């Protein structure tokens, strides 16, 4: 599978593990709130009809993130 370096680069169907967050302040907290910390496994489920945002499976919940926010989550492919 491809190695994407951030979450927004993940294609539907791909899975990756979070290696870190590069967002400041509030965005960082929000991402942590939904369970995105180092080691969290995330699957990209699909993009919305207009291509952005995309839906991700995070710790059993489906959560939509905009590309600009997802780009703050560094991941490595699995």
């Amino acid at each position, binding site marked *: 599978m491809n190695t994407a370096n951030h979450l927004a680069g993940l294609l539907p169907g791909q899975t990756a593990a979070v290696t870190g967050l590069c967002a400041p302040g509030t965005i960082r907290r929000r991402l942590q709130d*939904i369970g995105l*910390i180092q080691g969290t496994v995330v699957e990209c489920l699909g993009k919305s009809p207009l291509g952005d945002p995309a839906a991700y499976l995070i710790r059993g*919940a489906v959560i939509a993130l905009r590309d600009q926010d997802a780009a703050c989550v560094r991941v490595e492919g699995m």
Partner: protein
Amino acid sequence: MGLSKDSTGARAADTGLSIEKKEPDDLVVALAGNPNVGKSTVFNGLTKMHQHTGNWPGKTVTNAQGRCQQGGQGFVLVDLPGCYSLLAHSAEEEAARDFLCFGGADGAVVVCDATCLERNLILVLQAMEIAPRVVVCVNLLDEARRKHIRVDLEKLSQLLGVPVVGTSARSGKGLQSLLEQTRQTIEAPEAPAPPPVPYSPFTEDAVRRLQPTVEKLCKGQVNARWMSLKLLDDSDVTLDLAAEKYLGLRLRDCPEVRGLLEDIWQEWKTQGVTAEQVRDDIAAGAVRRAEEIAGMVTTQGQNGYSPRDRKLDRVFTSKVLGFPIMLLLLLGIFWLTIVGANYPSQLLSTSLFWLGDRLRELCTLCVLPPWLVSLLVDGVYRTLAWVVSVMLPPMAIFFPLFTLLEDLGYLPRIAFNLDKCFQSCGACGKQSLTTAMGFGCNAAGVVGCRIIDSPRERLIAMLTNSFVPCNGRLPMLIALITMFFAGAAGGLGGSVMSALMLLGMILLGVGLTLLMSKLLSKTLLQGVPSSFTLELPPYRRPQFGKVLVRSIFDRTLFVLGRAAAVAAPAGLVIWLLANITIGDATLLAHSAGFLDPFARLFGLDGVILLAFILGLPANEIVIPLILMAYTGGGALLELTDLAALQAILVGNGWTWVTALCTLLFGLLHWPCSTTCMTIKKESQSLKWTAVAFLLPTLCGFALCFLAASVARLFGLG
């Protein structure tokens, strides 16, 4: 949508966290939990209230309170808005945290979704750090069973160190034992001492040093371990403010605390520990522990996102089918509403007017003076009858249908599909949800904007909410469309035409919402879109029977209540205007005549504009007011159906251009007075209320002017 008199209008914005105990020994219990875990269902099940429930995160934005009793013990339940964390990033999270932390409640019940336990446990662990007496309610066990997810509740209780009760709130299972367990936990002499969430050694070490001092200063009023943790996170000033308010203590400024903190940071600096690292560690602690516990107590048949949901999402959010399905669903709902409302509308109108005649006979029998009979029957009663027969049937059909979509979990998918549009307009994707709420009641939609975190984006959503027609305006649009544009076609073709035209009006409203959002974010409310996360909940089979009964019942009461409260006095006013004569004409003729030249510019007439102005308290009464004004002094007309109404309008000079302009103005004019007051309350600003008033009004005048001018130019109408 669960519109009732408590969820709409002025009451929708009631947020005060003042607890109303009926008996002095009532126990106050806070209900906390992630969004969309069935908290409101638990709340309703226990209190027998009808707080609005629906399958989308964020529908509870206010703190509902309710009382229930078990074995002589009273409980006051406080339904806190759903949140993912108690680390307080938004006003709701802050309110929830303060309520749990500073002794507002005797105990707390944290409601979890059994199908997504891991994520839910994060909040449970955070709540346990703050509140001393917590009971965990693992809800949606029925749904979990269907998905072959098993949760070992006993083991969960052991690992967490607090009582755990399993429930299926939709069918009411387990709620009584939840209440019993909560009472026991609150009444127990000692609060349970659950094992704390472990953090990294450097954090733990610092907490160990701070805790005794904090304990001493706070005198046991708050959890000292948690307070110490928060002192290590210097980014959160809200807690410092809250502590000052509730404890009268500026903890961070106490010399002992300050000394300790300085030492700790000094050491961390030499060890290379950064503030960001500490904050991350505090945030990650609960997440890691939740993962660990969830792994030990759940056996997954499949996770919360089932293959069925995956398939449905592939269709509903597909690149090709996503938008067509959305439009078709909306069209279908409108069509069913139009077709279904026609017959009961006629029936209601016939019977209500028959009743009116009997009422007149009764009045005459009681030898009331003729002017009083006319005032009561022609003024008050007739307006009321019109409002009920025109408004009630469409609403009693539209809302159950809409509620079914809502229960299914489709609304968040709409937000998901449309987010890109809102994003490019500098607005928040959740605005689709508040816009959808606007269909029910714009005031409720404005309050619903609290789910949007960024103040700038929330204001945009509030200012543009009235671009979709609320339940007072939708039937007006339906009636006008049926009378002037599709009625002639008749049959299936006619009703589909009506539905298409209504869809067109709604799309115009949504399009203007986007356009105005963009305009606002380029001018008055500049800024970049903020981050946003939107949860897409599992699809749930709607409870058809319950939705239909509840919705029709609530709606009937709601419309009747409104009719009595607003239509009756309006009928009185318009009757007086039509019957008090000054000089050579009635007051009504004077005011309509005064407005007429201005109104004609926009394809309306003086009476229509006057009706919209008098309709400020409630849009329901606009059409009845127009009819009333046209027939005002005259004899009571036999009005059996829309065709008869149309005849009156045409008789008073209406053409299809007049109807089109009235439609446009009905969609786009000032928000009703309740909505204006709600905007004032929510925005705390007269300026923004004025903008909210002017924005749709100017759009309405502009479009009407355009339509009327084009029609005049081509000699149409």
